[in-house]
């Protein structure tokens, strides 16, 4: 199976990465850009259920206090 996990900052939590990217784009002359936010994607391959991936997010990939995550089955989800 192949799962896609996407981890992003919760609303209100500072996304310095997005902010510095915005600054960089302005400096490069991309004046039209108004905002940038970022997220991290993990593609997880293996023999695991959606429940496992939930658990993986909670235990390692995301902190529910400051981050949101979404899980998407890409291949072979059998639920």
């Amino acid at each position, binding site marked *: 199976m192949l799962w896609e996990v996407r981890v992003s900052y919760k609303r209100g939590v500072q996304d*310095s*990465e997005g902010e*510095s*990217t915005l*600054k*960089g784009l302005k*400096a*490069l*002359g991309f004046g039209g850009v108004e905002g940038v936010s*970022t997220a991290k994607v993990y593609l997880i391959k293996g023999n695991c259920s959606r429940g496992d991936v939930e658990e993986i997010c909670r235990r390692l990939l995301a902190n529910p206090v400051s981050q949101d995550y979404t899980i998407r089955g890409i291949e072979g989800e059998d639920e």
Partner: protein
Amino acid sequence: MNFCILRAPGTNCDGETARALEELGCGAEVVHLKRLLDGRVDILGYSGLVIPGGFSYGDHIRSGAIVGRVLSHALGERLSRFVDEGRPVLGICNGFQVLAEAGLLPGFEGTSRFPEMALSKNASSHFEDRWVHLRAGESSCPFTKGMPPVLRMPVAHGEGRVVLPPGGLERLEANGQVALRYALGSGEPAGGRYPENPNGSAGDIAGITNPQGNVLGLMPHPERAFLRILYPDWTRTGGEGYGDGYLLLRNMVEYVRRL
């Protein structure tokens, strides 16, 4: 002789780098990137350019990406001229990343508009501070000439793994552009072995020069190996005098004197 030590938000090795150059008898002026960009300062007013270590703009996108791309976007032409005139450019750690992103290194056909190499996340995937052995002398770079066969300096970075396009390594080697390689204590190349090669760089590359030899980018920090007393084992091996970083920086200064 007056060096421009370029800094951007997040640069943090400018103080000790400037200090080392001053001890070698040159002027070293720390200049904020924005002063170059808004034209208050002209890069062509300096005898050399040093881009020191740090985390410019937080290094979020890729280390050195913002400064590198902004430099090439806004000052590309002046920088090319600076390099073509043979003036020395040294990028240390974050500075190396900047030079790579700016297209100044490897500079196969002169300065390129887009990067021709990458300094990617360490194979270990984390930041690492450790002393390494280096082998110099294969390249045309005058800054690494006449050095002892094995040098010691510290690296401290999270993204220092040299990634080259297909054929890139061969091309670098053929051009004599590999200035420094990670080595074993004996001077043999590290052969990709960790931790001697601390980041998994292709060809154990720690430093690259341009074909002309006047631009050098390296991940290790010569300013942190400037004095023997900064070595991690000086209490065993002696803390008097200058270290290998001094030799490299002195070579660069002498190169300028000869220009």
